[in-house]
């Protein structure tokens, strides 16, 4: 018998820490296919297709620039407001679309879950990567804007570092998606709640304003939000904006790591009876 003898045991599972990461790796092709499906399906039969990925944050940018930049006159650390805003909107849009689709991914994939076995974590995770592709396209627009506004861009080493700040973004979005998608199976209320949470989230993240707008003694609170680190990191690396409070932001990243690990454990618990309650 040359071939590897596989053995699967089906029994009531009880443990807490069986994360089955190896299995996730075995199904990486499915993850790739789902990422690609999410992307294609969204833009099939639309006239401008993938351009929507660029257009959505762009339109938001125009509206917010008028409201917050012109009318409210929010400061933007010496960078033209639209550029400042867009550098924050790009990672925020990534975060909010990922959470929106990720938190509903188990409900949407109910039919598949009921009919075939695969590691369920792949469903929310697939949206993390779909979002990254949208983000890459939006980045092109950002670079275009930076040239258009002739912002004082320091083309240099920091600029190559912006992908580093995607790590906390993916970690936080991934952790939150796991919690929310698993909880949404049991409590559909989550599904109704997420849009509001995201709306609040955008205002406790310095997307349309600068951290400095807050009194110094409250700034640390803002910096504990893991998305603050991402937005500030983008602005630091791309626009050369000085940033303070890295320590707090590292703490925020630490929290999102804990959130991700906890999310995986909770998700694996829910996964056991998922097909029964969906």
């Amino acid at each position, binding site marked *: 018998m040359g071939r590897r*003898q*596989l*053995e*699967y*045991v*089906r*029994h*009531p*599972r009880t443990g807490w820490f069986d994360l089955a990461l190896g299995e996730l790796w075995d*199904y990486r*092709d*499915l993850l*790739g*296919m*789902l990422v690609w*499906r999410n992307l*294609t*399906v969204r833009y*099939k*039969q639309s006239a401008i297709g993938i351009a929507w990925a660029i257009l959505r944050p762009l339109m938001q940018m125009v509206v917010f620039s008028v409201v917050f930049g012109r009318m409210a006159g929010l400061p933007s650390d010496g960078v033209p407001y639209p550029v400042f805003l867009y550098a924050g909107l790009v990672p925020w849009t990534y975060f909010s679309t990922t959470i929106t689709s990720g938190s509903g991914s188990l409900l949407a994939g109910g*039919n*598949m*879950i*009921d*009919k*075939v*076995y*695969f590691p369920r974590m792949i469903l929310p995770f697939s949206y993390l990567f779909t979002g990254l592709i949208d983000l890459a396209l939006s980045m092109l627009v950002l670079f275009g804007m930076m040239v258009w506004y002739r912002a004082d861009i320091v083309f240099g080493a920091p600029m190559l570092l912006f992908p580093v700040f995607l790590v906390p973004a993916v970690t936080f979005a991934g952790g939150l998606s796991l919690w929310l998608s698993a909880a949404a199976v*049991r*409590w*559909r209320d989550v599904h109704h709640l997420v849009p509001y949470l995201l709306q609040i989230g955008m205002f406790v993240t310095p997307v349309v304003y600068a951290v400095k707008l807050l009194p110094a003694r409250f700034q640390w609170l803002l910096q504990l939000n893991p998305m603050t680190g991402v937005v500030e990191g983008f602005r630091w690396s791309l626009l050369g904006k000085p940033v303070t409070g890295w320590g707090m932001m590292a703490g925020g990243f630490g929290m999102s790591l804990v959130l991700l690990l906890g999310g995986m454990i909770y998700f694996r618990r829910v996964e*056991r*009876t*998922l*097909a*029964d*309650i969906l």
Partner: protein
Amino acid sequence: MNAPLVEVEHLGKTYRLGEIHRDWLAGLAGRLRGRPRPGPLPELRALDDVNFTVGEGEVFGLIGANGAGKSTLLKILAGITDPSTGRAVLRGRIASLLEVGTGFHPELTGRENVFLNGTILGLRRREIAEEYERIVDFAGLDPFMETPVKRYSSGMRVRLAFAVAAHLRPEILLIDEVLAVGDIAFQRKCLGAMKDVAGGGRTVLFVSHNMAAVSSLCHRALMLRQGRVAALGTTDEVIQTYIHSTEGVHARDEQGFVALHERQPLHPQSPMLLCAGRLADERGRPVSSARTGESLRVDVRVEGLDRFPSAVVGLTVRSVFEQKIFHFNTAMAGGFGPVPRHAREIVRLEIPDLPLMAGAYSLDLLVFEPGVRLIDRVDGALNFDVIEADLYGNGYRGEAREGLIVVRGECRLEGEEGGA
């Protein structure tokens, strides 16, 4: 001796009934007003202490009425849901087909869906790419592979989905009756294709309602009744148990009658004479299937037939494709003669030598006054399976592919005149 490929020990599964998402706010409000806390939800034992093993290369049938636990068992084996008690060990690569075309997305093209569906079923992309030409070839859909699946006919969709499934290379294949979309010939082709493509000797667990399919495909079978093993053994033995179990698709009373009350009359003023119907064997025991060449008895409970002295009661047997195969009625059988009629009666129709090939059939019941009017009719009143039998005494087994009707005949050789 090799260990069995599938080993199931004391497997059980309990579902909690009732709503999981009970409105928490409403519950709280109720309790504040002094209503008692609702008790624990009732439970359903979908599976209870199931034990069996399946060896290498065996085709194993799982039968039972709706809700007997067949699909739950398959889902546990496939890893879709956990059992509540006991365990099952499966040795080898598993593929489960609980549905044809799981994850098919209507907006994606045929080619895209082949890759999506294949990876969902656990194949690597490289494996699908290697098999791709053969899959397209098998499905016979080469010109349509760049067309979105939503423009496919349902037949094309099934062919494509099945082509992907047939090119999985599992050691253990779990199939629900999804493949029962066609007739037994199609099922045979599907299973045959899977065994051939995979290189033969695969272990198959096959869930089906179609006794004919189980009988011709499976070596051994297991019958579940309310989550428990009701019979386990050779397919013939198990099917025998199944035939005589009176639980069927419809609710039946203790005599095996299926009630026909819940329906609309033909016309607002038409009386509903047909009350209930059942199938029985020659000894009058209720059955849910019949055998080719043996007797089929249909008992029809009627009410108010005495008001229509010239009425005839009849039945029409149809294939799964709704094609009428034959009609038989009381007038053909010579009528009842001048016997007094009662308000409630049972009309018994008997066909001594059932000429149907193995397969699934349904029958319509009707009451009419010949040449005058149709009084009452229930389409699809009873469903039944016909199971193949050794009709010619030499082991020849017909298939529905050859035709729906069985005939007997003779043959002989005669030298041609002037030839010899």
